[in-house]
Structures are given as structure tokens and as C-alpha cells.
């Protein structure tokens, strides 16, 4: 009896192997699903929902300027401290004297270093002077995009990025927006 059982088991095992091999064979004949990257790229429609690094959105009137009001919300909520916003210096009483003063730097801390608006008659410029993103540390959590009160931020679909240097990932988002606006208008002209 023992021998028969052994044989039956071996046959069953053999059958299982053949069934498995059949599946492998079928799969072998199917077309591949891999996107062979440098020759082919992922279709744009698959990237619509992809969260790349953040970028500024152009405002309605001026696509080269973001609607950002430099409230510094995004800078202070960012867990990785990778957003740095440079404000326009507040208008001075005597602009000529302070012409060469360096722009105020804001340390990226948890607390926004906002100051009370200066009691000047001139309206302070609200749009940022510079908007620097250090993508090296970004964890793509989306908190900055979500907390912006004027929807000035969005995710780009940029993901073909690779560089041997860390410096390449420090983006000047204002310049990026300007470049985007430039290409958009150029396209319109064509």
C-alpha cells in the first residue's frame, strides 16, 4: 500500500508541475507589460494624478506671477522645511538710503516670521520675490498644497529627473513659472 500511495503522490506532484508549466507557457506568449523606459515613456494620461515636486500656479491675469500672498503657510507647515520664500522687502520710508540693504532672510522654522505690516502708505508687494524648493528633502506629503489659502501651489508631473548633484534639485519655482508662462505664450503666438 505504501508504494502505491507514494506513486499516487508523485503523480499528483508531477501533475501540479505540469499545470504550473502550462500557465507559465501561456504567460510567455502574452505581450509584455513592462514600459521599456528610455525608448518608451509612460503615457501623459497616466501622469495626471501623479504627484511630482510642487510648483507654483500662474494667476489668471498674469500667468508668470503666482496668486501667492506670501502668507508663509506652506513654509511653516512643511514637515521637512524645504520651502523657502523670499519676500519683497517692506517699503522703506527713504527707499534711496536703503537701496542696497540685503533682502530680509527668513529662516525656515516652524513659526512663520511674519511681521506686522509697516505703517507705510505704499502698498507692500504681496507676491514673493523668490520661491525656493529644496526637493531633496520633500516627502511629497501634500500638506503645503492643501494648506495654501489661495491655491497657489500644485503638484507637477515631473518625474524624469535624475542628477548626480544635490544642487540640481533646489528649484527656483518663480523662474520655473516664468519659463512655463513663456512657453505657453510662445505656443499661443504660433
Amino acid at each position, binding site marked *: 500500500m505504501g508504494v502505491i500511495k507514494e506513486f499516487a503522490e508523485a503523480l499528483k*506532484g*508531477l501533475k*501540479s*508541475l505540469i*499545470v*504550473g508549466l502550462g500557465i507559465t507557457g501561456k*504567460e510567455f506568449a502574452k505581450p509584455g507589460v513592462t514600459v521599456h523606459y528610455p525608448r518608451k515613456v509612460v503615457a501623459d494620461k497616466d501622469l495626471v494624478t501623479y504627484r511630482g515636486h510642487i510648483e507654483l500656479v500662474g494667476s489668471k491675469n498674469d500667468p508668470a506671477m503666482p496668486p501667492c500672498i506670501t502668507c508663509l503657510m506652506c513654509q511653516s507647515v512643511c514637515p521637512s522645511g524645504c520651502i523657502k520664500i523670499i519676500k519683497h522687502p517692506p517699503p522703506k520710508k527713504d527707499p534711496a538710503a536703503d537701496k542696497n540693504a540685503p533682502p530680509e532672510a527668513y529662516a525656515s522654522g*516652524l513659526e512663520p516670521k511674519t511681521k506686522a505690516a509697516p505703517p507705510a502708505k505704499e502698498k507692500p508687494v504681496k507676491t514673493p520675490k523668490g520661491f525656493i524648493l529644496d526637493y531633496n528633502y520633500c516627502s511629497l506629503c*501634500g500638506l503645503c498644497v492643501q494648506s495654501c489659502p489661495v491655491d497657489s501651489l500644485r503638484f507637477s508631473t515631473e518625474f524624469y529627473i535624475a542628477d548626480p548633484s544635490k544642487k540640481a534639485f533646489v528649484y527656483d519655482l518663480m523662474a520655473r513659472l516664468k519659463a512655463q508662462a513663456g512657453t505657453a505664450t510662445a505656443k499661443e503666438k504660433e
Partner: protein
Amino acid sequence: MSVFPKGDFYTRHFQPSGKEETLVVNMGPQHPSTHGVLRIIVELDGEYILRCEPVLGYVHRMHEKMGENRSWVQYWPNTGRVDYLHALAWNWAYAGAVEKLAGIEVPERAEYIRVITCELNRVSSHLLWWGAYLLDLGAFTPIMYAFDDREEIMDMLQMPTGSRLTYCYYRFGGVSADLSDEFLKRLSRFIPYLRSRLPMYRDLVTENVILRKRVEDVGHIDEDMCRRYGCTGPVVRGAGVAYDVRKAEPYSVYDRFDFRIPTYPEADAFARYMVRMDEIEESLKIIEQAIATIPDGPYLSKSAPKPKWSAPKGEACFAVEGARGKITYYVASDGGRTPYRVKLRSPSYCNLSCFAEAAKGVILADAVSILGSLDLVIPEIDR
């Protein structure tokens, strides 16, 4: 004796068995079967393991301490990086704990969205485990089948969450983006598709005689052992105990769905394997029911906290069922800007701790099978 003592702290503490004929070797920290940086010191007598000891901490990232130096909202990205394979369960546990502490209401639609995405994530986690486990056992091709299906899940989860692995999708009082109709349509197409693939998985691997020989009757972790070490998830269900947080202490809207908790009494690696395979089916069932009954409404509560929000004084604890077992977040607040304490209970840690006992006296190749059957995610163990 040289000036420098031999080995490191762990090996020196492991050494003094004094037996001549045995060999002490390190498995890891870089070993294909540990899927991460886990090191196991093994004392071998020939091919047999006399005793072994896991050494942890190679990817310790201080998630608990990090919680204490960032605001409540800023802790979000951390939650997705504890267990990268079932990130949404960790998202959920943190959301649940803080919502409990602060009494934040979650809209019904958001609860359904959480169920759908979390279960989908569980399926993808089990699929990856399936492929990786077979990879450990020496079968290379199955992971390709698993990745084919998992790719579809990741593409789908990318639609609402924006990322493919370390999700940071849930928010206090809901989720950060709504599910689109396209997502729901694609998902309802995907469920029958994956269901039709499961028999293929069974024929290809589960019935395979070579796999059976490697997993059946290997690595017994019975109920008593689970109790002593605090094992949860598929490990305890593989020991015949129907313990699942989704049923034991139903959170969210899980009590509205009809699903079964698969258990297998054999308590071996094959039982744990089968539990996970059945769980894929059960998860699909839950998703199907959730899609059919998902209500309309907001996906984020109106009273959802603003970025600068901090929780009121108090403490709260919230448990969810992850792909690997019971995930618990404990948060304590003293009313300050940052949490006073964040404590994470990770299931892999408890599941790993029974490995030393389960692997005693087995062949080294079987130890790999046992380790794989525990479905460990090393970053989760180290946190």
C-alpha cells in the same frame, strides 16, 4: 588575543556556548530573505539551527521621537513610512488616534473611502508578500505575476493619493482627495479581474508540490506561542485563532460589511500562506460592498483641523488591522504645539520575536521559509 575584541556586542553576547563542532554565522544584515536590514545570528550544527537571535535596529528612524518635535499635522508623512507596504493602515491608525483624542467627526463618505483604499492596499501588500516569499523559496517567476496585478493596484491608488508606495493620504477628519468616478469604475472592473487571477495563482503555486514540501509542517507557531509573544495578524489566524481587529473591535464602518476571517488550525507556514491568500478574496469582497454602498457627501469634515492645529490635552489609543497584524497608535497631548508622546505598536516586531523559538532545531533552509511566512517589514520592526 588581539587588542580589539572579536565581533561586535551582539556576537560577543551570543558566543559562549563553548561547543567545538558548532558554527556561529550571521544571516544578514544584508540577506535576500530578510527583505531589509535584519540580522540573525545563528548557531549551526551542520545544517541544523541550534539557536538563533535576531538583531534589530539597522533602520531605526526614530518615528516616535520625531513625533515629539513636529506639530500634529506635520507628522503625517512619517505614518506612511513605517510600513511602506501597507502605508494606509498606518495612516489610518494615526488619524484614528488623533480623531479619538480630539473628537473630530469623519464624514461617512470618507470612512468608505478609507475602507476601500486601505483594503486595496492590503491586497497589494499580500500580493507583494506572495511574490517575495516565493522568491525566498527559490521560485523567481511568481513575483512577476504578482507585480503585474500589483502594478494595476498601484496605478489605481495613485489616482486619489498621488503616490505609489509611501502614501500620505488620510487627514484628520477625512482624506485629502475624493475618489473620482473613473477610479471607482476602474476598481469595479479590477475586482472580477483579480478574482479570475486567483485560481491561476492557486494552480501555479499553491498546488505546486515543491512549494508544499517547503511550507507544509514547517515553522509551527501555535496559539500558545502567539499568546506569549503577542503575535497578531495572519500569524495568529494561521494558528486557528479568529482574531482580527476589524471584527474584534470594529472601527470605522467595518461592522456594515459582510466578510469572513480566514483561519487555519495547522499553525505552520502553509497555514499562514493560505490565510493571506484567502484574505485577498475577503478584501475584494469588502471593497465590492463598499463600492456598491458608498454614499455621497464631503470627503473631508468641515471641522477638519487647520495646519497650525494642536490637539487638546489627553491621550488616546487606536488600533487597526494591518496586513501584518494589529497596528496601534498611542498619542498623548499636553495641549502643546507638538504631541507629548507618540507610541507605535508594530505587528512585525511581535511576529519576529517568535522566530527564535520557531526556528530552533530546523534546517537552515526552513528557517528562510519561516522568516518569509511571517511577512516581516523591517522598517516597521525598527520604526
